[in-house]
């Protein structure tokens, strides 16, 4: 049975493109998460905590173990300045 060698070129192309898409998405996602894996299965509590992390460190994935919050934490909640 003859092997369709010509089909290997598009097959290779398609495989490469799938790999390129996946790798690029992974790199982009990690770049947005300070190099850490992306969080998943987030519930309302997690989102609230990530919002708090952002207020404390300036980034959703930023972490700190300072006992005292920075001075800006007292006023940087968006609830403070939203119109009632």
């Amino acid at each position: 049975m003859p092997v369709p060698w010509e089909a290997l070129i598009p097959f290779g192309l398609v495989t490469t493109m799938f790999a390129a898409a996946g790798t690029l998405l992974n790199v982009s996602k990690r770049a947005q998460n300070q190099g850490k894996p992306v969080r998943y299965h987030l519930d309302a509590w997690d989102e609230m905590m990530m919002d708090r992390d952002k207020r404390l460190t300036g980034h959703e994935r930023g972490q700190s173990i300072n006992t005292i919050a920075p001075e800006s934490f007292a006023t940087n909640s968006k609830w403070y300045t939203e119109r009632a």
Partner: protein
Amino acid sequence: MSFWHNPSSAAKPYVDPTPLPDDIPKVQELGVTSGPLKSAAFFIGAYCKDYNDDFMLCKAENRDPAHCLKEGRRVTRCAQDLITKMRENCLAEFDKHWNCLEWNNQEYGACRKPERALNKCMFEKLGLVKTIPGTPEGQTPIHEVKNPILNGVQK
């Protein structure tokens, strides 16, 4: 009306338009973020049980935010106290555990090894034990199981 301005790009420092009245003591909030807090959670539960219970009882009494400010300040102070002690005594184990949590979607199951080291250190230095509330009688709690079946995603 007022807008929210990003403080990092603001020209002048932001002034709180509605500060708390002066008769309420100013509180220094806890600066610990989600990962380290999750790592310390069971120790906060063990160390600050009285203050936390007091706060919850107060809240059950009255949902008015002004009613439980004093109890809330005690909860904050107790958590700060514990984090300070943790940093003094078990900083290496603490860092390892919360970094592991941070790299594993903050799931305890994936980080049992650093967790055991942290639990051991916390028990030896501070006498605090992690107990999971509601564990059935006579059953090994999941953080003490030697070979847990579910232990994170393979990468």
